[in-house]
């Protein structure tokens, strides 16, 4: 099993894909560290918010993650 990472907005361009399957590492911090450095840098932008399984996550580095979870990275919005 694995985790799914979802990249919204311009993060999709940086990631080169809308979603990415990654091994289930224990924390967000560990997952981000395992990614391409340019992508990791973009994801660590303090304006990027996280949602786990569709629920906004307040704390980003110490979430307990499980197989099948979807972690979405949400850059600043620009709607309407």
């Amino acid at each position, binding site marked *: 099993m694995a985790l799914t990472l*979802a990249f919204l907005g311009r993060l999709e361009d940086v990631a080169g894909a809308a979603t990415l399957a990654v091994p289930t590492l224990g924390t967000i911090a560990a997952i981000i560290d395992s990614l391409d450095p340019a992508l990791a840098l973009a994801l660590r932008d303090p304006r990027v918010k996280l949602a786990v399984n569709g629920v906004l996550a307040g704390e980003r580095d110490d979430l307990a993650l499980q197989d099948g979870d979807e972690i979405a990275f949400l850059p600043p*919005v*620009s*709607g*309407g």
Partner: protein
Amino acid sequence: MSVAGPVDVRLLDAGFDPAAVLTAFAAAHPASGGFVSFLGQVRAGDGGAAVEALELRHYTPLTLPAMQALAATVMARWPLDGLLAIHRVGAMAPGDPIVLVAAAARHRRDAFAAADYAMDHLKSESWFWKREKVAGAWRWIEPRAEDFSDLARWG
């Protein structure tokens, strides 16, 4: 296009006809004397800055639920007979409608305030990401400082 109850919130991946929606909305609220609406459409742009296409992306688990929560907040804050919020996602061309918000109320000021508030929050707090194609190249749109100052008006 019929209107579903006092609160009608929709996320559409295809074009819609704002005039038909507004006609249905007004007809659905015969006791309302005043209707305020905001329509946002893809701007044609000028010369070199002409927008050739616009794309709006959303995140399914968050976007529509947050729009519904916003609508509930607006309904609770002003005495409205009805509130409508329709937002496009996907690819659009100049002239296409992007967003339509309408408020129906007995009193004009409530309808103005509700539509204004709903738009400020849709613009700056809703889960949409926009990119535009200008001179053949796509670029992501960053939030504007103005969006946050608009929001700050509501305390």
